[in-house]
């Protein structure tokens, strides 16, 4: 497993990648559910066509950030493939969120972020 500093090499993640990781962080999902989740969360700003979706999944699998797993209980007999976040993937995601958080806190402290006036 790479050392922490290696994560910085991998960052920043593309928005689509981060959103896929976020979707899987809540529990195992099949590909299309990830897509729906992402589109819902971003209000359709990020669209994952079938190609984009599985290209992303393919790369994430190769990097061992996510892994295929069996279908959960109620969907046992489904033909669909389910994926879950690997421990490595979770750490990458957290590293990216931390990075974003640092940027955002900095921006807030300088009243630069859009919602900073409220604070």
């Amino acid at each position, binding site marked *: 497993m790479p050392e922490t500093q290696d994560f910085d090499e*991998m*960052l*920043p*993640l*593309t*928005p689509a*990648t981060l959103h896929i990781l976020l979707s899987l962080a809540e529990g195992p999902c*099949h*590909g*299309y559910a990830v*897509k729906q989740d992402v589109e819902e969360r971003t209000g359709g700003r990020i*669209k994952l*066509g*079938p*190609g*984009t*979706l*599985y*290209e992303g*999944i*393919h*790369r*994430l699998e*190769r*990097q061992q*950030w996510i892994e295929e797993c069996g279908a959960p209980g109620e969907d046992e007999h489904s*033909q*669909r*493939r389910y994926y879950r976040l690997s421990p490595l993937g979770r750490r990458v995601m957290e590293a990216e969120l931390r990075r974003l958080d640092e940027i955002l806190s900095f921006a807030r402290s300088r009243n630069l972020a859009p919602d900073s006036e409220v604070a």
Partner: protein
Amino acid sequence: MKPAGAGERIYRRLLRLFPKPFRQQYQESLVDAFRAQRSESRYRGLLGWARFWGEVTIDLTKTALRLRLLGDRRALSAPRRGGSIPSVQCENAGPWWTRWVSGWTRDFRFSARSLRKAAGFTAVSVITLALGIGATTAIFSLVYSVLLRPLPYDRPDELVLFWEYDPRYQFDHLPLSPAQYLDWKREAEPFSAMAGFRSTSVTLTGGQAQAERLRAMYVDGDLFDVLGVASYRGRQLRAQDCLPGAAPVVVMGYGLWQSRYGGDPGIVGSAIDIDATPHEVVGVLPPGVRFPPPVNLLGQLYEWQTQLYLPFVPDTDRRASRSVMAVARLKSGVSVDLALQQLQPLARELASRHSEIAEGVRPVLVPLREQAVQESRGGLLMILAAVGVLLLIACVNVANLQLARLPARTREIAVLSALGASRPQVLRRLLTESLLVAVIGSLLGIGLAWTGLQSLSGLARNYVPDMGPVQLNAPVLLVALLAGGLTGIVFGMAPGLRAMRLDLTRSLNQGGRSASGGQQRLRSGLVVAEIALAVVLCIGTGLLFNSFLRMQSIDPGFNAQQATALQFLLPKGRYPESAQIEQLQSRVLAETRAVPWVEQSAISSTLPLIGVGNSGAGHFLAEGQALEEAQQAQQVAETRYVSDGFFQVLEIPLLSGRAFESADLGEERPVCIVNRQLAERMWPGQSPLGRRIGISVTEGEVPWLEVVGVAENFKSG
């Protein structure tokens, strides 16, 4: 699970764009996601459909390209978005092809952005291209499918039509007499098979639908064997069906099956009423197959829209009337000339055996293909030319659009060069942009051609119901795509090529507002060419329209305005007696004349310009003339049977004598009315009234008719 739709099948095929391992791993998941996305509500309707496919195509090409070109090299991190002029930046390190690809991607993105900025230009270019490609291809494809589809028979080159030449008529496309046909069929050497057919019309009744008058063909049982056409449903006719006393059966054309029976598969085995006699439907022909095909006989197009095929029972001993057409298949390797040579001895023998065969009668063979397409080839070339001009206009338009942008572009290029872009980089940028426009325009064009063709062929199907499948004509589509695309690309590159020998400072200072003299000349030249092409098209259309108008304005010698025609044919099965027919006819006359807005009505055996009158087998002769004299002078006249009121309804002037009266019906007063031409020919300078003529006289007793009137000539057929 629902069966896979056409869309899904296409998508599956498109998945081949992905590298194989990726495809193998994710194929089903991809299709699953595709299916789920398709069912989303925002993709409903036609617009939704277009949006869906647009998104799916872009998604697929983009990711497939990335996977193929970059493999797994690409990190998951965000691309580093650079300055405002991407391709001028330093290229990334890496093997040459990654640099190449990323350069192109960047150019592509830049082009997309700059095209979006010049939205008007982009839209007009794309639409011009799409219209040019789409219209050209759709129109030509339709015409091609309708007119020049290859003959839908097996090895059509071996098929010949069998006619006879008779010196008495000086005509070499005569049908055969039934007995003569049987002789040829039995004994002709050079054919592997031969089949006769005879045209007829029948009335189809029964079911919920209206009675229909249809073109039918009596055909020999082995006709479809000769043609090599398998049935689409059920079976073909057989030789046994043509034996006297066989149960009445019929084979149906695909068009009729679709239009009247809605393609009901249960039609085979059921009975339909033809001329009030039930016939069992034994088979249906494949779509687009019809016999005979449209044929050119001495410059006239004969198009039998045959819809029903009935067994043909030739009347064995009739040698006088020529009613049978025949098609034969040459044995393989036998040419038409050789076949004619081989037929000579048999022709002589037949003539010596039967005295009815006139001297000098000889067989005539015409390749079916030759006779079937001659007529359409000229028209097709004309349409191809017209469509070509249309495409040229589209190309000139695209070129002009690009040139109009040239001054602005020159400045842009100067800026790029000033910032350090190399000439290849500039050219590549321009090329990408032109390519992008060309590709979008072409894609739209293909879509337009396809949808246009669908709706056009739907329209055409109303007129040609058994039209075969209509396909986009690939060669024409290709030519259109190449022409349109290349024009766009070449002229899109023009500013770049010019920049090769450009004075940087000057064009930066000038702001590129003025076009140089050379371009001005080129643009004017293009405009002139465009106008010339448009004029050519207009003139062509005008000429066509003019000849159409002229055809309309021929004085037919009668006045059809305010006249309305109705055709009725009486099935022999239901009206066997002539008394019944006469009764019905007088009822029709009486009842139509009782209608308040009907001034006059009449019945005629055939209508002028619609059907030719019957000229019968024999000759006509005036009383006092010998039959030989009439034969020598070739006295043949068209005869029409008309009721009283005929001349009144069509406003054909009577020059002397009287019109028919209802009292003329019946046997007691055999009378006739002749036209001016006949009167002047037979009795020049004398009154024909009261004289007697015989019509369709062949021999023996002459049924004389008294001339009671002379009518003005009118155009018959």
